[in-house]
């Protein structure tokens, strides 16, 4: 009996230690990734990286200025398309809709959220690239925007529903119409949460490569306007990492570091904004 108890305690201690090991392994992967990227990326990053165009194959040096600007353009278009739809859609869900319509919209959003990013790319290709007959920043921005919609919509809705009903009632008791209540009371009260949702959606699509492969396509030169094929940072990381040239691989590390730094900073800022409390702000 005693031996059995000792055995059980031993098993318990062992298994619990193992769970701790699992957690340490999982978290250390992050630090490993960060450390490796900072080490390799930091060594290869230089001023040229931010200011110069890519050099022709075989020539060393050059940078990714066009990809950085391209990513900014694509993300601008994506936000322009995805954020309003997500934001106003969420207002409809939280403030206006009946339960049946809300179910349909939520279901569609969740479905969209689960679609693999490469399939979103096909969708954007069929919808934007084929009619225009060429790859463009518009198509890439559309693909990324579609991915932003469900993330913005669902979490914005959560935060709007989290605004206490007493605030709505108070505003209406003062004679404000419904849209005035929403615009001046509810949205300002939930603005931290909404900002967090938008930032997280932004960070999520900033690193997407797959939907850009056959929408934005890539471009080794400056891409004027929005109607031409355009380069993006994640796409550069991909192309350069699988290339056989050492100098390109070096730049892939640098681009990866810049991309990851951007995404992690946006993530941390977003969480920080939220952690400061969903305090009710005056508009």
């Amino acid at each position, binding site marked *: 009996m005693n031996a059995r108890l000792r055995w059980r305690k031993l098993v318990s201690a062992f298994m619990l230690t193992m769970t701790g090991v699992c957690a340490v392994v999982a978290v250390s992967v992050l630090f490993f990734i960060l450390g490796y990227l900072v080490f390799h990326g930091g060594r290869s990053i230089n001023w040229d990286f931010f200011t110069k165009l890519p050099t022709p194959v075989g020539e060393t040096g050059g940078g990714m200025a066009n990809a950085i600007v391209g990513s900014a353009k694509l993300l601008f278009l994506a936000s322009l398309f995805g954020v309003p739809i997500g934001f106003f859609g969420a207002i409809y869900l939280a403030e206006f809709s009946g339960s049946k319509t809300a179910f349909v919209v939520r279901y569609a959003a969740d479905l969209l959220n689960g679609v693999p990013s490469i399939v979103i790319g096909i969708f954007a290709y069929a919808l934007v690239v084929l009619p225009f007959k060429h790859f463009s920043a518009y198509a890439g921005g559309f693909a990324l925007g579609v991915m932003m919609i469900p993330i913005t919509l669902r979490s914005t809705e959560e935060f709007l529903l989290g605004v206490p009903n007493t605030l709505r009632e108070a505003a209406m008791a003062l004679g404000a119409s419904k849209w005035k209540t929403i615009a001046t009371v509810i949205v300002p009260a939930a603005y931290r949460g909404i900002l967090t949702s938008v930032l997280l959606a932004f960070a999520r699509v900033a690193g997407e490569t797959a939907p850009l492969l056959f929408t934005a396509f890539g471009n080794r030169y400056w891409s004027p306007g929005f109607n031409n094929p355009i380069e993006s940072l994640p796409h550069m990381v*991909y192309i350069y990492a699988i290339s056989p040239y050492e100098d390109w691989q070096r730049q892939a590390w640098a681009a990866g570091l810049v991309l990851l730094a951007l995404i992690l900073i946006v993530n941390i800022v977003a969480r920080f904004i939220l952690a400061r409390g969903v305090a009710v702000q005056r508009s």
Partner: protein
Amino acid sequence: MNVPSASPVADSRSFISRLRNGDEIARIVTFIFAATVVLLTVLLVYELWIASSLPRQKFGFAFLITKLWDPIAEQFGALTFIYGTIVTSAVALLIAVPLGIGAAIFLAELAPQKVSDPLQFFIDLLAAVPSVIYGVLGVFIVIPIMRTVIAPTLKATLGFLPLFQGPAYGVGFLTAGIVLAIMVIPYIISVSREVLLSVPRDQREAALALGSTRWEATWKVVVPFARTGIMGSIFLALARALGETMAVTMVIGNTPSISGSLFAPGYSIAAVIANEFTEATGDVYIQSLIQLGLVLFLLTFILNGLARLLMLLTASRGSGTGRA
């Protein structure tokens, strides 16, 4: 869920006066945006279906079960890619599920909140790392390690299994599976931890009071109580693994072949779309690729649906599920 539309008085006001107030306009405008979401989703399914009609007419169901992928003869079969997708995802889950659930148990049951919350924060950050970064790490770290350490070790120890035979190039099913595992672990941890934390305290206390050790209370009471939710997290992870493109494309080897060995290079659905879409010539070719996208979409659609259902079940089911 919904806020009742103002008060009875507001409801009884006429449409015109609500219109003048701006309420009706606001409702219509926001409705248009909400409807756009539904419209886009419907359009996505419709486009995928319409744009892949040719191979459906030409090959029918044989598309899913033939191996031949020959763009020149315009013969297309998806079996190699489906095989690659399933094998890499299975390897990923085999590695990620024990690790992820172990870590979730640690975070939910053992670690004090002061440790658990920061660790969860780091794990959330890990989930935000873009897939192309995992791909880069796969190319420059996992592939060399696979070639020099993992493959020789596995061959020496488990080499009698057909799974671990044949030449190891570094790229292949196993490498892709490992990279995918690293990618999906954060999802499993986050969701499972959430579910484990929602198990009522008295379940643990009752088990401990009956004389079980800490581990027995966790493994035989708390985990079974939360098992539907944990299953949900696994389905979620599987859906992500199946649809993952960049990281897999960079390490799987991109060779359309079916091999019993995990060391062999292969191909996955997402990877073939990524590699061949822009180069595809001819309608049947490009539509076959779109049809592959449709297959991928349906797979993830079903898995996501199952995941949500399971998580709903845990949320709605009260006590009585734990079989102590």
